[in-house]
Protein backbone atom coordinates (compact mmCIF):
# COMPACT_ATOMS: atom_id res chain seq x y z
CA UNK A 1 0.00 0.00 0.00
CA UNK A 2 2.70 2.40 1.01
CA UNK A 3 4.50 1.72 -2.17
CA UNK A 4 1.42 2.40 -4.25
CA UNK A 5 0.82 5.76 -2.58
CA UNK A 6 4.36 6.76 -3.34
CA UNK A 7 3.86 5.81 -6.95
CA UNK A 8 0.70 7.91 -7.16
CA UNK A 9 2.46 10.91 -5.78
CA UNK A 10 5.29 10.45 -8.20
CA UNK A 11 2.77 10.30 -11.02
CA UNK A 12 0.97 13.45 -10.00
CA UNK A 13 4.18 15.35 -9.55
CA UNK A 14 5.35 14.20 -12.90
CA UNK A 15 2.40 15.87 -14.64
CA UNK A 16 3.33 19.04 -12.90
CA UNK A 17 0.15 20.19 -11.22
CA UNK A 18 1.27 19.97 -7.68
CA UNK A 19 3.47 20.89 -4.89
CA UNK A 20 3.84 18.55 -1.95
CA UNK A 21 1.68 15.89 -3.54
CA UNK A 22 -1.61 17.78 -3.56
CA UNK A 23 -3.47 19.80 -6.11
CA UNK A 24 -3.82 23.33 -4.79
CA UNK A 25 -7.44 24.35 -4.22
CA UNK A 26 -7.75 28.08 -4.64
CA UNK A 27 -10.77 29.87 -3.39
CA UNK A 28 -13.02 31.71 -5.81
CA UNK A 29 -14.21 34.76 -3.90
CA UNK A 30 -17.79 35.65 -4.71
CA UNK A 31 -20.45 38.10 -3.69
CA UNK A 32 -23.29 37.00 -1.41
CA UNK A 33 -26.75 37.74 -2.84
CA UNK A 34 -30.03 36.09 -1.95
CA UNK A 35 -28.32 33.42 0.13
CA UNK A 36 -26.10 32.32 -2.75
CA UNK A 37 -22.52 33.08 -3.69
CA UNK A 38 -22.48 34.69 -7.09
CA UNK A 39 -20.09 36.27 -9.54
CA UNK A 40 -20.82 39.71 -10.90
CA UNK A 41 -23.30 39.58 -13.78
CA UNK A 42 -20.84 41.84 -15.58
CA UNK A 43 -18.12 39.19 -15.38
CA UNK A 44 -15.66 41.84 -14.16
CA UNK A 45 -13.03 41.39 -11.48
CA UNK A 46 -10.56 43.47 -9.58
CA UNK A 47 -7.47 42.26 -7.83
CA UNK A 48 -6.55 42.51 -4.21
CA UNK A 49 -3.15 41.81 -2.82
CA UNK A 50 -2.91 39.67 0.23
CA UNK A 51 0.23 38.61 1.96
CA UNK A 52 0.77 34.89 1.64
CA UNK A 53 0.56 32.67 4.65
CA UNK A 54 3.04 29.86 5.02
CA UNK A 55 1.38 26.59 4.05
CA UNK A 56 -1.70 28.26 2.57
CA UNK A 57 -2.68 27.53 -0.98
CA UNK A 58 -4.11 30.98 -1.57
CA UNK A 59 -2.03 33.12 -3.91
CA UNK A 60 -0.80 36.59 -3.11
CA UNK A 61 -3.15 38.24 -5.53
CA UNK A 62 -6.79 37.23 -5.58
CA UNK A 63 -9.60 38.08 -7.95
CA UNK A 64 -12.69 39.69 -6.45
CA UNK A 65 -15.92 40.30 -8.40
CA UNK A 66 -16.36 43.94 -9.43
CA UNK A 67 -20.05 44.46 -8.76
CA UNK A 68 -22.14 46.42 -11.27
CA UNK A 69 -25.27 48.54 -11.17
CA UNK A 70 -27.24 45.46 -12.24
CA UNK A 71 -25.80 43.44 -9.34
CA UNK A 72 -26.99 46.20 -7.05
CA UNK A 73 -30.44 46.10 -8.57
CA UNK A 74 -30.68 42.31 -8.26
CA UNK A 75 -29.60 42.55 -4.63
CA UNK A 76 -32.23 45.20 -3.88
CA UNK A 77 -34.91 42.98 -5.38
CA UNK A 78 -34.04 39.97 -3.20
CA UNK A 79 -33.62 42.22 -0.15
CA UNK A 80 -37.05 43.69 -0.81
CA UNK A 81 -38.62 40.25 -1.07
CA UNK A 82 -36.83 39.08 2.06
CA UNK A 83 -37.98 42.05 4.13
CA UNK A 84 -41.54 41.11 4.90
CA UNK A 85 -40.88 37.57 6.17
CA UNK A 86 -37.80 38.72 8.12
CA UNK A 87 -39.69 41.56 9.79
CA UNK A 88 -42.60 39.20 10.50
CA UNK A 89 -40.43 36.85 12.54
CA UNK A 90 -40.56 37.37 16.26
CA UNK A 91 -37.85 39.63 17.60
CA UNK A 92 -36.85 36.74 19.82
CA UNK A 93 -36.28 34.53 16.78
CA UNK A 94 -34.16 37.20 15.08
CA UNK A 95 -32.11 37.29 18.27
CA UNK A 96 -31.65 33.52 18.18
CA UNK A 97 -30.40 33.74 14.62
CA UNK A 98 -27.92 36.51 15.42
CA UNK A 99 -26.68 34.47 18.36
CA UNK A 100 -26.24 31.55 16.00
CA UNK A 101 -24.15 33.89 13.85
CA UNK A 102 -21.93 34.55 16.86
CA UNK A 103 -21.52 30.79 17.31
CA UNK A 104 -20.50 30.36 13.68
CA UNK A 105 -18.07 33.30 13.88
CA UNK A 106 -16.56 31.69 16.95
CA UNK A 107 -16.06 28.39 15.15
CA UNK A 108 -14.40 30.18 12.23
CA UNK A 109 -12.20 32.31 14.45
CA UNK A 110 -8.95 31.07 12.95
CA UNK A 111 -10.04 31.59 9.36
CA UNK A 112 -11.24 35.12 10.09
CA UNK A 113 -8.05 35.93 11.96
CA UNK A 114 -5.79 34.73 9.21
CA UNK A 115 -7.86 36.60 6.64
CA UNK A 116 -7.37 39.85 8.56
CA UNK A 117 -3.68 39.11 8.97
CA UNK A 118 -3.29 38.62 5.26
CA UNK A 119 -4.82 42.05 4.70
CA UNK A 120 -2.17 43.64 6.87
CA UNK A 121 -3.26 43.41 10.50
CA UNK A 122 -0.83 42.07 13.05
CA UNK A 123 -1.77 38.77 14.63
CA UNK A 124 -2.71 40.46 17.89
CA UNK A 125 -4.86 43.10 16.17
CA UNK A 126 -6.61 40.48 14.08
CA UNK A 127 -7.32 38.32 17.09
CA UNK A 128 -8.80 41.17 19.06
CA UNK A 129 -10.87 42.38 16.10
CA UNK A 130 -12.38 38.92 15.66
CA UNK A 131 -13.13 38.68 19.38
CA UNK A 132 -14.75 42.11 19.35
CA UNK A 133 -16.82 41.11 16.32
CA UNK A 134 -18.10 37.97 17.98
CA UNK A 135 -18.92 39.90 21.15
CA UNK A 136 -20.78 42.47 19.09
CA UNK A 137 -22.84 39.77 17.41
CA UNK A 138 -23.84 38.51 20.86
CA UNK A 139 -24.60 42.08 21.92
CA UNK A 140 -27.03 42.70 19.04
CA UNK A 141 -28.49 39.20 19.39
CA UNK A 142 -29.53 40.16 22.89
CA UNK A 143 -30.87 43.50 21.73
CA UNK A 144 -33.40 42.19 19.19
CA UNK A 145 -36.28 41.57 21.56
CA UNK A 146 -35.61 44.65 23.67
CA UNK A 147 -35.72 47.32 20.99
CA UNK A 148 -39.45 47.77 21.15
CA UNK A 149 -39.49 48.07 24.94
CA UNK A 150 -36.74 50.66 24.85
CA UNK A 151 -37.99 52.97 22.14
CA UNK A 152 -41.75 52.53 22.11
CA UNK A 153 -43.79 54.89 24.22
CA UNK A 154 -47.17 55.47 25.72
CA UNK A 155 -47.73 59.15 25.03
CA UNK A 156 -49.55 61.57 27.30
CA UNK A 157 -52.38 63.00 25.21
CA UNK A 158 -55.11 65.46 25.90
CA UNK A 159 -58.37 63.57 25.62
CA UNK A 160 -59.83 60.15 26.33
CA UNK A 161 -57.32 58.29 24.19
CA UNK A 162 -54.23 56.18 24.52
CA UNK A 163 -51.43 57.27 22.22
CA UNK A 164 -48.90 54.53 21.49
CA UNK A 165 -45.76 54.99 19.45
CA UNK A 166 -44.17 51.81 18.14
CA UNK A 167 -41.03 51.16 16.10
CA UNK A 168 -41.13 49.38 12.76
CA UNK A 169 -38.33 48.41 10.43
CA UNK A 170 -37.82 50.66 7.41
CA UNK A 171 -37.34 48.05 4.71
CA UNK A 172 -34.23 47.79 2.57
CA UNK A 173 -31.17 49.61 3.89
CA UNK A 174 -28.12 50.07 1.67
CA UNK A 175 -24.82 50.15 3.58
CA UNK A 176 -21.52 51.38 2.25
CA UNK A 177 -19.33 49.50 4.75
CA UNK A 178 -16.28 51.04 6.41
CA UNK A 179 -12.94 50.46 4.68
CA UNK A 180 -11.63 49.43 8.07
CA UNK A 181 -12.00 47.69 10.39
CA UNK A 182 -12.96 45.21 7.69
CA UNK A 183 -14.67 42.60 9.85
CA UNK A 184 -15.74 44.59 12.89
CA UNK A 185 -16.95 47.32 10.56
CA UNK A 186 -19.28 44.91 8.75
CA UNK A 187 -20.60 43.39 11.95
CA UNK A 188 -21.12 46.79 13.56
CA UNK A 189 -23.00 48.28 10.62
CA UNK A 190 -25.04 45.28 9.43
CA UNK A 191 -26.29 43.77 12.67
CA UNK A 192 -28.03 46.85 14.15
CA UNK A 193 -29.81 47.30 10.81
CA UNK A 194 -31.14 43.74 10.56
CA UNK A 195 -31.82 43.34 14.29
CA UNK A 196 -35.03 45.34 13.98
CA UNK A 197 -36.23 43.55 10.86
CA UNK A 198 -34.64 45.54 8.03
CA UNK A 199 -32.82 43.80 5.23
CA UNK A 200 -29.50 45.06 3.91
CA UNK A 201 -27.56 45.51 0.69
CA UNK A 202 -23.93 46.05 1.63
CA UNK A 203 -21.00 47.23 -0.45
CA UNK A 204 -18.00 45.65 1.25
CA UNK A 205 -14.66 47.26 1.96
CA UNK A 206 -12.67 47.66 -1.22
CA UNK A 207 -9.42 47.32 0.70
CA UNK A 208 -10.18 43.90 2.19
CA UNK A 209 -13.17 42.30 0.47
CA UNK A 210 -11.80 38.81 1.16
CA UNK A 211 -12.66 39.07 4.83
CA UNK A 212 -16.16 40.20 3.89
CA UNK A 213 -16.58 37.06 1.82
CA UNK A 214 -15.47 34.86 4.73
CA UNK A 215 -17.95 36.74 6.91
CA UNK A 216 -20.67 35.99 4.33
CA UNK A 217 -19.85 32.31 4.63
CA UNK A 218 -20.64 32.68 8.32
CA UNK A 219 -23.93 34.41 7.48
CA UNK A 220 -24.80 31.63 5.05
CA UNK A 221 -24.45 28.97 7.73
CA UNK A 222 -26.15 30.83 10.56
CA UNK A 223 -29.87 30.20 9.81
CA UNK A 224 -30.15 33.75 8.47
CA UNK A 225 -32.73 33.55 5.64
CA UNK A 226 -31.31 34.24 2.18
CA UNK A 227 -31.70 37.83 1.05
CA UNK A 228 -31.68 39.43 4.51
CA UNK A 229 -28.04 40.42 4.08
CA UNK A 230 -26.58 40.80 0.61
CA UNK A 231 -22.96 41.72 0.23
CA UNK A 232 -21.52 43.13 -2.97
CA UNK A 233 -17.85 43.71 -3.67
CA UNK A 234 -16.55 46.45 -5.90
CA UNK A 235 -16.57 50.22 -6.15
CA UNK A 236 -18.95 52.10 -3.88
CA UNK A 237 -18.74 55.08 -6.19
CA UNK A 238 -20.06 52.94 -9.04
CA UNK A 239 -22.87 51.08 -7.24
CA UNK A 240 -24.00 53.32 -4.38
CA UNK A 241 -25.44 56.21 -6.44
CA UNK A 242 -27.82 53.74 -8.13
CA UNK A 243 -28.84 52.36 -4.75
CA UNK A 244 -29.42 55.91 -3.51
CA UNK A 245 -31.65 56.58 -6.51
CA UNK A 246 -33.49 53.24 -6.31
CA UNK A 247 -36.98 53.90 -4.97
CA UNK A 248 -37.20 50.45 -3.39
CA UNK A 249 -34.28 51.29 -1.07
CA UNK A 250 -35.55 53.01 2.07
CA UNK A 251 -32.32 54.23 3.62
CA UNK A 252 -28.63 54.43 2.90
CA UNK A 253 -25.89 54.30 5.52
CA UNK A 254 -22.52 55.55 4.33
CA UNK A 255 -19.34 54.76 6.21
CA UNK A 256 -16.72 55.21 3.54
CA UNK A 257 -17.39 57.87 1.00
CA UNK A 258 -15.51 61.01 0.13
CA UNK A 259 -17.36 64.32 0.19
CA UNK A 260 -18.19 64.20 -3.50
CA UNK A 261 -19.78 60.77 -3.24
CA UNK A 262 -21.61 61.69 -0.06
CA UNK A 263 -23.12 64.74 -1.72
CA UNK A 264 -24.06 62.68 -4.74
CA UNK A 265 -25.78 60.07 -2.58
CA UNK A 266 -27.73 62.73 -0.74
CA UNK A 267 -28.83 64.30 -3.98
CA UNK A 268 -29.78 61.01 -5.64
CA UNK A 269 -31.59 59.91 -2.50
CA UNK A 270 -33.67 63.06 -2.32
CA UNK A 271 -35.98 62.00 -5.17
CA UNK A 272 -37.44 59.24 -3.04
CA UNK A 273 -37.02 61.13 0.27
CA UNK A 274 -34.59 58.46 1.37
CA UNK A 275 -32.94 58.51 4.80
CA UNK A 276 -29.30 59.17 4.05
CA UNK A 277 -26.95 58.72 7.02
CA UNK A 278 -23.26 59.40 6.65
CA UNK A 279 -20.32 58.99 8.93
CA UNK A 280 -16.73 60.19 8.77
CA UNK A 281 -13.43 58.41 9.34
CA UNK A 282 -13.55 59.16 13.04
CA UNK A 283 -16.85 57.35 13.36
CA UNK A 284 -15.31 54.35 11.58
CA UNK A 285 -12.42 54.32 14.02
CA UNK A 286 -14.87 54.55 16.92
CA UNK A 287 -16.45 51.29 15.82
CA UNK A 288 -13.46 49.57 17.37
CA UNK A 289 -14.42 50.44 20.94
CA UNK A 290 -17.51 50.44 23.13
CA UNK A 291 -18.88 53.54 21.41
CA UNK A 292 -19.26 51.45 18.28
CA UNK A 293 -22.37 49.74 19.51
CA UNK A 294 -25.64 50.72 21.11
CA UNK A 295 -29.30 51.41 20.71
CA UNK A 296 -28.50 54.53 18.70
CA UNK A 297 -27.22 52.40 15.82
CA UNK A 298 -30.50 50.49 15.74
CA UNK A 299 -32.72 53.52 16.19
CA UNK A 300 -31.42 55.26 13.09
CA UNK A 301 -33.12 52.66 10.92
CA UNK A 302 -36.54 52.51 12.50
CA UNK A 303 -39.75 54.20 11.49
CA UNK A 304 -42.17 55.12 14.24
CA UNK A 305 -45.86 54.50 14.03
CA UNK A 306 -48.25 56.24 16.39
CA UNK A 307 -51.66 54.76 17.10
CA UNK A 308 -54.54 56.43 18.89
CA UNK A 309 -56.91 54.20 20.75
CA UNK A 310 -60.00 55.27 22.70
CA UNK A 311 -59.88 54.82 26.44
CA UNK A 312 -62.68 52.83 28.06
CA UNK A 313 -64.94 50.18 26.69
Amino acid at each position, binding site marked *: MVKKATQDRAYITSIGTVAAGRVSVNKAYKMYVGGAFVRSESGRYFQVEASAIAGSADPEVVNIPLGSRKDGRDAVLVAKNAHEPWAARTAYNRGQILYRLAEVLESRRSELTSSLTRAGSTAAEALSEVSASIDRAVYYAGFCDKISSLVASHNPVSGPHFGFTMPESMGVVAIVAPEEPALLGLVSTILPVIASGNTAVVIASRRDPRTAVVFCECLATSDLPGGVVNVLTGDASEIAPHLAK*HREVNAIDTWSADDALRTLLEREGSG*SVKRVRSHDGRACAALRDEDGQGLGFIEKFLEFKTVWHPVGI
Partner: protein
Amino acid sequence: MDRLETHEDLGFASDLLIFSRENRSLACGNLRRVTVLFYTPVPVDQVAIEERVAALAKRSLKKQAKVQGLKLAISMMDLTTLEGKDTAGKVTALCTKAMHPLDSDNSIGPCAAICVYPNFVRIAKRALEGSSVHVASVATAFPSGQSPLPIKLEDTRRAVEFGADEIDMVIDRGAMLSGDYQKVFDEIAATKEACGPAHLKVILETGELGSYDVVRRASEIAIAAGGDFIKTSTGKIQPAATPAVTLVMLEVIRDHFYRTGKKIGMKPAGGVRTAKQALHYLVIVKETLGDAWLTPDLFRFGASALLNDVLMQLEKERTGAYQASEDFSKD
Protein backbone atom coordinates in the same frame (compact mmCIF):
# COMPACT_ATOMS: atom_id res chain seq x y z
CA MET B 1 -66.45 5.13 -44.52
CA ASP B 2 -66.42 7.50 -47.40
CA ARG B 3 -63.29 8.31 -49.21
CA LEU B 4 -59.89 9.30 -48.11
CA GLU B 5 -59.21 12.90 -48.94
CA THR B 6 -56.86 15.66 -48.01
CA HIS B 7 -58.85 18.56 -46.77
CA GLU B 8 -57.55 21.80 -48.19
CA ASP B 9 -59.52 24.00 -45.83
CA LEU B 10 -57.70 22.61 -42.87
CA GLY B 11 -54.47 24.00 -44.08
CA PHE B 12 -52.56 20.80 -43.50
CA ALA B 13 -53.08 19.41 -46.94
CA SER B 14 -49.83 17.56 -46.87
CA ASP B 15 -50.02 16.30 -43.32
CA LEU B 16 -53.63 15.78 -42.47
CA LEU B 17 -55.35 12.87 -44.04
CA ILE B 18 -58.95 13.10 -43.28
CA PHE B 19 -62.11 11.09 -43.67
CA SER B 20 -65.12 13.13 -44.47
CA ARG B 21 -67.99 11.51 -42.65
CA GLU B 22 -70.97 13.79 -42.38
CA ASN B 23 -72.15 16.72 -44.36
CA ARG B 24 -73.01 18.96 -41.45
CA SER B 25 -71.45 22.26 -42.21
CA LEU B 26 -69.76 24.31 -39.57
CA ALA B 27 -69.54 28.02 -39.14
CA CYS B 28 -65.81 28.06 -39.71
CA GLY B 29 -65.98 28.09 -43.46
CA ASN B 30 -66.83 25.19 -45.71
CA LEU B 31 -65.61 22.62 -43.26
CA ARG B 32 -67.50 19.47 -42.89
CA ARG B 33 -67.51 17.43 -39.79
CA VAL B 34 -64.27 15.61 -40.20
CA THR B 35 -62.57 12.70 -38.65
CA VAL B 36 -58.90 13.00 -38.00
CA LEU B 37 -58.04 9.36 -38.49
CA PHE B 38 -54.48 9.34 -39.44
CA TYR B 39 -51.90 11.99 -39.47
CA THR B 40 -48.44 12.36 -38.07
CA PRO B 41 -47.38 15.81 -36.99
CA VAL B 42 -43.87 16.97 -37.64
CA PRO B 43 -41.76 15.80 -34.71
CA VAL B 44 -40.51 18.67 -32.54
CA ASP B 45 -36.80 18.91 -31.88
CA GLN B 46 -36.83 19.65 -28.17
CA VAL B 47 -33.14 20.47 -27.89
CA ALA B 48 -33.18 22.81 -30.87
CA ILE B 49 -36.30 24.61 -29.64
CA GLU B 50 -34.84 25.20 -26.20
CA GLU B 51 -31.51 26.26 -27.59
CA ARG B 52 -33.20 28.68 -29.97
CA VAL B 53 -35.25 30.41 -27.27
CA ALA B 54 -32.21 30.55 -25.00
CA ALA B 55 -30.25 32.24 -27.77
CA LEU B 56 -33.04 34.72 -28.43
CA ALA B 57 -33.18 35.53 -24.70
CA LYS B 58 -29.65 36.87 -24.93
CA ARG B 59 -30.63 39.63 -27.29
CA SER B 60 -30.39 42.92 -25.54
CA LEU B 61 -32.84 45.73 -26.16
CA LYS B 62 -31.80 49.13 -24.89
CA LYS B 63 -33.16 52.63 -24.62
CA GLN B 64 -35.49 53.61 -27.47
CA ALA B 65 -36.04 50.08 -28.76
CA LYS B 66 -36.78 48.91 -25.23
CA VAL B 67 -39.28 51.69 -24.60
CA GLN B 68 -40.97 50.96 -27.91
CA GLY B 69 -41.08 47.25 -27.11
CA LEU B 70 -42.55 47.87 -23.69
CA LYS B 71 -45.23 50.17 -25.04
CA LEU B 72 -46.06 47.58 -27.68
CA ALA B 73 -46.28 44.93 -24.96
CA ILE B 74 -48.81 47.03 -23.06
CA SER B 75 -50.94 47.41 -26.16
CA MET B 76 -50.91 43.60 -26.48
CA MET B 77 -51.94 42.83 -22.95
CA ASP B 78 -55.06 40.95 -21.99
CA LEU B 79 -55.31 42.21 -18.43
CA THR B 80 -56.65 39.23 -16.59
CA THR B 81 -58.50 38.48 -13.41
CA LEU B 82 -59.83 34.96 -13.07
CA GLU B 83 -60.32 34.34 -9.41
CA GLY B 84 -63.07 33.00 -7.24
CA LYS B 85 -62.90 36.21 -5.24
CA ASP B 86 -63.45 38.53 -8.21
CA THR B 87 -65.98 41.27 -7.62
CA ALA B 88 -67.63 43.92 -9.76
CA GLY B 89 -65.42 46.47 -8.03
CA LYS B 90 -62.23 44.66 -8.87
CA VAL B 91 -63.25 44.15 -12.49
CA THR B 92 -64.20 47.82 -12.83
CA ALA B 93 -60.87 48.89 -11.38
CA LEU B 94 -59.09 46.57 -13.77
CA CYS B 95 -61.00 48.09 -16.70
CA THR B 96 -59.88 51.55 -15.64
CA LYS B 97 -56.34 50.31 -15.46
CA ALA B 98 -56.62 48.75 -18.92
CA MET B 99 -57.78 52.09 -20.37
CA HIS B 100 -55.28 54.23 -18.44
CA PRO B 101 -52.40 52.05 -17.27
CA LEU B 102 -50.41 55.00 -15.94
CA ASP B 103 -52.18 57.95 -14.32
CA SER B 104 -49.38 60.36 -15.05
CA ASP B 105 -48.95 59.55 -18.74
CA ASN B 106 -51.88 59.24 -21.11
CA SER B 107 -49.68 58.22 -24.01
CA ILE B 108 -49.22 54.79 -22.45
CA GLY B 109 -51.84 52.17 -23.26
CA PRO B 110 -54.58 51.23 -23.59
CA CYS B 111 -54.28 47.48 -23.19
CA ALA B 112 -55.78 45.18 -25.81
CA ALA B 113 -58.44 43.57 -23.68
CA ILE B 114 -59.47 42.54 -20.26
CA CYS B 115 -60.09 38.87 -19.58
CA VAL B 116 -62.74 37.86 -17.05
CA TYR B 117 -65.24 35.16 -16.14
CA PRO B 118 -68.61 35.31 -17.97
CA ASN B 119 -70.33 36.75 -14.89
CA PHE B 120 -68.29 39.94 -15.23
CA VAL B 121 -68.60 40.48 -18.97
CA ARG B 122 -71.51 42.92 -18.69
CA ILE B 123 -69.80 44.90 -15.97
CA ALA B 124 -66.58 45.09 -17.95
CA LYS B 125 -68.42 45.99 -21.13
CA ARG B 126 -70.11 48.89 -19.37
CA ALA B 127 -66.88 50.07 -17.76
CA LEU B 128 -65.03 49.97 -21.06
CA GLU B 129 -67.70 51.70 -23.12
CA GLY B 130 -66.25 54.05 -25.68
CA SER B 131 -62.74 52.67 -25.38
CA SER B 132 -60.87 50.38 -27.73
CA VAL B 133 -60.35 47.78 -25.03
CA HIS B 134 -62.03 44.47 -25.82
CA VAL B 135 -63.71 42.18 -23.36
CA ALA B 136 -62.50 38.61 -23.44
CA SER B 137 -64.38 35.98 -21.49
CA VAL B 138 -63.24 32.52 -20.59
CA ALA B 139 -65.82 29.88 -21.31
CA THR B 140 -66.33 26.13 -21.82
CA ALA B 141 -66.08 25.16 -18.16
CA PHE B 142 -62.82 27.01 -17.64
CA PRO B 143 -60.27 26.00 -16.40
CA SER B 144 -60.68 22.21 -16.52
CA GLY B 145 -63.07 21.90 -19.46
CA GLN B 146 -64.48 18.80 -17.80
CA SER B 147 -68.17 19.34 -18.46
CA PRO B 148 -70.54 17.97 -21.08
CA LEU B 149 -70.31 19.71 -24.44
CA PRO B 150 -73.81 21.25 -24.35
CA ILE B 151 -72.95 22.99 -21.10
CA LYS B 152 -69.70 24.27 -22.55
CA LEU B 153 -71.50 25.58 -25.62
CA GLU B 154 -74.16 27.22 -23.49
CA ASP B 155 -71.40 28.80 -21.43
CA THR B 156 -69.92 30.20 -24.64
CA ARG B 157 -73.22 31.48 -26.03
CA ARG B 158 -74.04 33.23 -22.78
CA ALA B 159 -70.68 34.95 -22.67
CA VAL B 160 -71.16 36.20 -26.24
CA GLU B 161 -74.69 37.28 -25.43
CA PHE B 162 -73.37 39.28 -22.47
CA GLY B 163 -71.18 41.12 -24.93
CA ALA B 164 -67.82 39.32 -24.97
CA ASP B 165 -65.74 40.27 -28.01
CA GLU B 166 -63.42 37.34 -27.55
CA ILE B 167 -63.89 33.88 -26.09
CA ASP B 168 -61.04 32.00 -24.43
CA MET B 169 -61.98 28.33 -24.47
CA VAL B 170 -60.14 25.35 -23.02
CA ILE B 171 -59.59 22.09 -24.84
CA ASP B 172 -60.37 18.75 -23.26
CA ARG B 173 -56.87 17.75 -22.21
CA GLY B 174 -58.01 14.33 -21.08
CA ALA B 175 -59.28 13.59 -24.59
CA MET B 176 -56.10 15.03 -26.09
CA LEU B 177 -53.85 12.84 -23.96
CA SER B 178 -55.90 9.69 -24.49
CA GLY B 179 -55.69 10.17 -28.23
CA ASP B 180 -59.29 11.16 -28.82
CA TYR B 181 -58.31 13.92 -31.20
CA GLN B 182 -61.69 13.75 -32.85
CA LYS B 183 -63.37 14.88 -29.65
CA VAL B 184 -60.91 17.71 -29.21
CA PHE B 185 -61.46 18.86 -32.78
CA ASP B 186 -65.23 18.59 -32.62
CA GLU B 187 -65.50 20.54 -29.42
CA ILE B 188 -63.37 23.36 -30.74
CA ALA B 189 -65.32 23.46 -34.00
CA ALA B 190 -68.62 23.47 -32.12
CA THR B 191 -67.41 26.24 -29.82
CA LYS B 192 -66.30 28.27 -32.83
CA GLU B 193 -69.80 27.95 -34.16
CA ALA B 194 -71.25 29.00 -30.79
CA CYS B 195 -68.97 32.05 -30.72
CA GLY B 196 -70.69 33.67 -33.65
CA PRO B 197 -68.94 36.97 -34.32
CA ALA B 198 -66.65 36.72 -31.29
CA HIS B 199 -63.03 35.78 -31.78
CA LEU B 200 -62.04 32.39 -30.47
CA LYS B 201 -58.85 31.74 -28.54
CA VAL B 202 -58.11 28.10 -27.88
CA ILE B 203 -56.29 27.35 -24.63
CA LEU B 204 -54.19 24.21 -24.93
CA GLU B 205 -53.01 24.19 -21.30
CA THR B 206 -49.55 23.13 -22.38
CA GLY B 207 -48.49 22.46 -18.80
CA GLU B 208 -50.74 19.41 -18.86
CA LEU B 209 -49.85 18.14 -22.30
CA GLY B 210 -46.53 16.63 -21.35
CA SER B 211 -44.41 17.12 -24.47
CA TYR B 212 -43.79 19.53 -27.31
CA ASP B 213 -45.04 16.91 -29.76
CA VAL B 214 -48.45 16.87 -28.09
CA VAL B 215 -48.41 20.70 -28.00
CA ARG B 216 -47.70 20.77 -31.71
CA ARG B 217 -50.47 18.31 -32.45
CA ALA B 218 -52.95 20.20 -30.24
CA SER B 219 -52.01 23.48 -31.94
CA GLU B 220 -52.65 21.99 -35.36
CA ILE B 221 -56.00 20.60 -34.29
CA ALA B 222 -57.00 23.94 -32.73
CA ILE B 223 -56.13 25.86 -35.88
CA ALA B 224 -57.76 23.29 -38.12
CA ALA B 225 -60.95 23.43 -36.06
CA GLY B 226 -61.25 27.17 -36.46
CA GLY B 227 -59.42 28.85 -33.60
CA ASP B 228 -58.45 32.47 -34.33
CA PHE B 229 -55.81 32.41 -31.63
CA ILE B 230 -53.99 29.63 -29.88
CA LYS B 231 -53.16 30.23 -26.25
CA THR B 232 -50.77 28.38 -24.00
CA SER B 233 -52.39 28.22 -20.61
CA THR B 234 -55.20 28.94 -18.22
CA GLY B 235 -52.80 30.35 -15.64
CA LYS B 236 -54.09 27.82 -13.14
CA ILE B 237 -51.48 25.15 -13.84
CA GLN B 238 -47.71 25.23 -13.50
CA PRO B 239 -45.80 25.43 -15.74
CA ALA B 240 -47.86 27.97 -17.67
CA ALA B 241 -46.44 29.83 -20.68
CA THR B 242 -42.76 29.25 -21.38
CA PRO B 243 -40.75 30.73 -24.24
CA ALA B 244 -40.03 27.23 -25.57
CA VAL B 245 -43.64 26.11 -25.71
CA THR B 246 -44.54 29.46 -27.28
CA LEU B 247 -41.95 28.92 -29.99
CA VAL B 248 -43.38 25.47 -30.74
CA MET B 249 -46.82 27.02 -31.19
CA LEU B 250 -45.49 29.95 -33.23
CA GLU B 251 -43.88 27.48 -35.60
CA VAL B 252 -47.23 25.79 -36.14
CA ILE B 253 -48.69 29.22 -36.92
CA ARG B 254 -45.84 29.91 -39.32
CA ASP B 255 -46.25 26.57 -41.09
CA HIS B 256 -49.98 27.17 -41.36
CA PHE B 257 -49.36 30.61 -42.84
CA TYR B 258 -46.97 29.20 -45.44
CA ARG B 259 -49.55 26.63 -46.50
CA THR B 260 -52.67 28.75 -46.48
CA GLY B 261 -51.70 32.41 -46.18
CA LYS B 262 -53.94 32.67 -43.11
CA LYS B 263 -52.66 34.40 -40.02
CA ILE B 264 -53.45 32.81 -36.68
CA GLY B 265 -52.82 34.69 -33.45
CA MET B 266 -50.79 33.60 -30.43
CA LYS B 267 -51.29 34.27 -26.75
CA PRO B 268 -48.87 33.13 -24.09
CA ALA B 269 -50.61 33.36 -20.72
CA GLY B 270 -49.54 32.80 -17.17
CA GLY B 271 -45.98 33.06 -15.94
CA VAL B 272 -45.06 36.20 -17.91
CA ARG B 273 -44.30 38.54 -15.04
CA THR B 274 -41.42 40.78 -15.98
CA ALA B 275 -40.78 43.36 -18.66
CA LYS B 276 -37.69 41.46 -19.64
CA GLN B 277 -39.67 38.29 -20.25
CA ALA B 278 -42.20 40.25 -22.31
CA LEU B 279 -39.44 41.64 -24.53
CA HIS B 280 -38.03 38.14 -24.89
CA TYR B 281 -41.41 36.94 -26.19
CA LEU B 282 -41.58 39.83 -28.65
CA VAL B 283 -38.14 38.91 -29.96
CA ILE B 284 -39.24 35.30 -30.41
CA VAL B 285 -42.35 36.42 -32.30
CA LYS B 286 -40.41 38.77 -34.53
CA GLU B 287 -37.79 36.16 -35.33
CA THR B 288 -40.34 33.43 -36.00
CA LEU B 289 -43.22 35.24 -37.69
CA GLY B 290 -41.93 38.71 -38.48
CA ASP B 291 -43.30 42.19 -37.94
CA ALA B 292 -46.75 41.29 -39.26
CA TRP B 293 -47.47 39.50 -35.98
CA LEU B 294 -46.28 42.35 -33.77
CA THR B 295 -49.79 43.69 -33.39
CA PRO B 296 -52.51 43.19 -30.78
CA ASP B 297 -54.61 41.58 -33.50
CA LEU B 298 -52.21 38.66 -33.70
CA PHE B 299 -50.27 38.57 -30.48
CA ARG B 300 -51.40 38.95 -26.88
CA PHE B 301 -50.03 38.51 -23.42
CA GLY B 302 -52.36 37.01 -20.86
CA ALA B 303 -51.13 38.58 -17.66
CA SER B 304 -51.95 40.42 -14.49
CA ALA B 305 -48.64 41.11 -12.73
CA LEU B 306 -46.81 41.92 -15.97
CA LEU B 307 -48.35 45.35 -16.52
CA ASN B 308 -46.93 46.86 -13.34
CA ASP B 309 -43.45 45.59 -14.06
CA VAL B 310 -43.58 47.05 -17.57
CA LEU B 311 -44.82 50.37 -16.15
CA MET B 312 -41.98 50.34 -13.63
CA GLN B 313 -39.44 49.84 -16.40
CA LEU B 314 -40.99 52.60 -18.51
CA GLU B 315 -40.83 54.95 -15.54
CA LYS B 316 -37.26 53.87 -14.94
CA GLU B 317 -36.40 54.81 -18.50
CA ARG B 318 -38.15 58.15 -18.13
CA THR B 319 -36.77 59.17 -14.75
CA GLY B 320 -33.53 57.21 -14.53
CA ALA B 321 -34.43 55.79 -11.11
CA TYR B 322 -35.46 52.23 -10.38
CA GLN B 323 -39.04 52.23 -9.15
CA ALA B 324 -40.67 50.82 -6.04
CA SER B 325 -43.52 48.38 -6.54
CA GLU B 326 -45.70 50.08 -3.93
CA ASP B 327 -45.87 53.20 -6.11
CA PHE B 328 -48.03 51.34 -8.66
CA SER B 329 -51.65 50.37 -8.15
CA LYS B 330 -52.33 46.72 -7.54
CA ASP B 331 -55.07 45.70 -10.00
